[in-house]
């Protein structure tokens, strides 16, 4: 056993020049007001400067992906609501589109228009939560209340359509759950009339506020190439000037019929992301207006008797309808063997559902490519060398939903 002899230095200068910095480890989250759910970020701090940030996910793991394998194809829609609970209609749509791709099903135009309209409303609702909480994190507490006031109108619209405020499950395989209730134009129109002035109010409060610009401009930049490598999508990558938007690049559900522009910014920082999302408020409004104006008539469900529940009246008179109804309700419908992936542009980025069928009435596998999961990966690089206050602004600008990330 040899004893390690430490060199003893009596030199007074060496002691003075030796940099003795002890880093403090701050365990931010999972219960922290600004980690938006249950993200845990381990911060290594020197003073207030972050030397290293390690995001730790999984606190909201619900096993939704596995649970999907236990339900039949149509029932899974209700689970997709609970993945990204702030933009559930987008999740419904992504899942339904991928299953419909397997089924090779044609969706009637009216259903497609409603899908687009509701997804855009849901995008506004999701961005409103983002803006409110992001501003609250930076300290502008009134914004939170203003945004939730508008979101309340949107939730009422969703309730009007589907009977549910949050977990709507309104978009189904084969179309929509129901046709829109009478008077839907009035309630959507009212929102379209009030909302533009509200967006202006938000910008009045924030855009020219030196504290807000000071807290957002130049915070958390990352090169485009690195962002692409990390798999970051959505407003984050559009804020770097890359017009990456699946609604334009791979139009789904008839987005190619709508006239809108992809909002981009060249700022590549928290401010840029804010600008992009504020622009998307306006673009979404444009799309909703167009959908309302050009709303076609006709059915909202595909003509696929093996998949879509038959009309109640037909059930009473036609033998086949009754049989299909019994089959669909008792065992669901079979989806041809194969696999399909459809990605859509959710408010947070590319949201894709990869579904595998073995030809039975239940999915063999449902995998979700969720934007939050990819976007959180950028956290360490964005936060390094920043201050604690910036880390909050950066986390807010990423706009992640932990339910979306952990599944």
């Amino acid at each position, binding site marked *: 056993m040899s004893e390690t002899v430490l060199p003893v230095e009596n030199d007074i200068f060496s002691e003075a020049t030796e940099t003795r910095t002890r880093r*403090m480890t*701050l*365990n931010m989250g999972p219960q*922290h*007001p*600004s980690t938006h759910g249950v993200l845990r970020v381990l911060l290594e701090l020197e*003073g*207030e400067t972050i030397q290293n940030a390690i995001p730790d996910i999984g606190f909201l793991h619900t096993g939704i992906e596995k649970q999907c394998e236990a339900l039949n194809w149509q029932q899974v829609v209700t689970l997709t609501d609970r993945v990204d609970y702030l933009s559930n209609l987008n999740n419904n749509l992504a899942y339904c589109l991928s299953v419909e791709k397997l089924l090779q099903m044609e969706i009637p135009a009216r259903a497609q228009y409603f899908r687009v309209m509701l997804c855009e409303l849901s995008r506004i609702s999701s961005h409103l939560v983002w803006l409110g909480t992001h*501003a*609250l*994190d*930076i*300290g*502008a*507490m*009134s914004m*939170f*209340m*203003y945004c939730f*006031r508008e979101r309340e109108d949107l939730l009422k619209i969703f309730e009007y359509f589907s009977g549910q405020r949050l977990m709507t499950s309104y978009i189904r395989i084969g179309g929509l759950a129901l046709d829109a209730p009478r008077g839907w134009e009035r309630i959507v129109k009212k929102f379209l009339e009030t909302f533009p002035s509200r967006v202006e109010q938000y910008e009045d*409060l*924030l855009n020219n*506020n030196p*504290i*807000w610009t*000071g*807290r957002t401009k130049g915070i958390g930049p990352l090169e485009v190439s690195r962002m692409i490598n990390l798999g970051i999508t959505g407003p984050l990558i559009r804020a770097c000037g890359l017009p990456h938007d699946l609604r334009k690049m791979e139009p789904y559900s008839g987005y190619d019929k709508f006239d809108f522009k992809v909002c981009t910014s060249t700022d590549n920082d928290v401010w840029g992301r804010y600008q992009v999302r504020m622009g998307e408020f306006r673009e979404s409004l444009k799309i909703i207006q167009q959908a309302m104006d050009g709303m076609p008539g006709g059915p909202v469900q595909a003509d696929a008797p093996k998949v879509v529940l038959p009309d109640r009246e037909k059930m009473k008179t036609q033998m086949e309808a009754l049989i299909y109804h019994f089959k669909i309700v008792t065992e669901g419908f079979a989806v041809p063997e194969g696999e399909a992936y459809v990605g859509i542009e959710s408010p947070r980025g590319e949201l894709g559902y990869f579904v595998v069928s073995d030809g039975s009435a239940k999915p063999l596998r449902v995998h979700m490519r969720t934007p939050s999961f990819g976007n959180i990966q950028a956290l360490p690089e964005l936060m390094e060398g920043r*201050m*604690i*206050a*910036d880390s*909050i602004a950066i986390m807010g600008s990423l706009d992640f939903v932990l339910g979306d990330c952990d599944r």
Partner: protein
Amino acid sequence: MDSLFAHPLFMPLVLTAIIILLFPLVAGYIVLVERKVLADMQVRLGPMRVGPYGLLQPIADALKLLIKEDIIPTNSDKVIFWGAPVLSCFCAFSGFTVIPFNSWIHIADVNVGLLVISATSAVGILGIILGGWASNSHYSLLGALRSAAQLVSYEVALSLSLVCGVMAAGTLQMPLIVKAQEQQHIWFAFENYGLMWIAFMIYLIAATAEINRTPFDLPEAESELVAGFHTEYSGFRWALYMLAEYGNIFVVASVGVVLFWGGWLRPFPNVSWLELPMNYGVPIALFGGSAWGSIRLVARLKDRIQQIVLMAVIAGMAFVALLFAWPAFNHASVSVFWFLFKVSMWVYLMVWFRGTFPRFRYDQLMNVGWKVLIPGGMLCVLANAIVGMARQ
């Protein structure tokens, strides 16, 4: 009996007792006002359950805080953890000693009154630093550090703006500062051809930073540090911190009012024909109008007891309005009314800030302090000195 009233200690002791007994209640109601005003700005109602329209909420809150479990974290430094909020509260209350509510209502008429306040408010920060340190928690420590840095940078700017006011008044004695404004027939905020307005703005910003209010509430930034220096505090000790915070708001507002807004003087002290409409009109309109406006609220209440409570409040306001219509009472107390009115304007301003502004970042806060406020304050002192000398 006469000798008792005439005793030099009578007035200070009575006032001290009144302030110590009454201020916790006043602070509670400032909190209620803050919550209600913020709620109004944020399109919601605020507290509505306890008492009519939430009027008894502060009392319920105080009771809750008193009977809450007393938690001292195991790893904390117990003595300091216990003492820090007391120190904070003590310093906040010490500031009250030299505040002149009118020309003769004050606890002590110290010839360096302004210095006393600046000293106590500086020591008061020590309570925050010690509390954050003793908690032995990371968030608390960061809050305490921020608080220390903030104190150092803003105390200087604050003092510089005070110097401007002192130069204009020629004294540090609080009542004499107001009397100087009375003689010069002007509020000091408008003195020196508007140059003092800059000093006033610097005071407003630095004072907001000094008492850790939005947008300078970094030591307790709830979205970053959970609750900052008082993360580990709960129950009555936490209430002491809150009491100190609202005490500080009151003191800082009083100093601002005394130094820049003419203390107990009515607005436009130089326009004599305004005396009647100002001294009688404003208080009567304020209290009478509030009472009149509240009458229709009674019918909306469903509970009988709540109706009675609200009616008592309305009667009280109407009674105060009537009192102000009585010349003898008006003459004796309108100066106190003006002082408290201006202080409440200041408190409203602080709440307004909180409803509007985002929060600064730590280094931006330092930048504003060192690069804007301190040089600005120095220039302001210089300019005011030159102009003041030239005017004599």
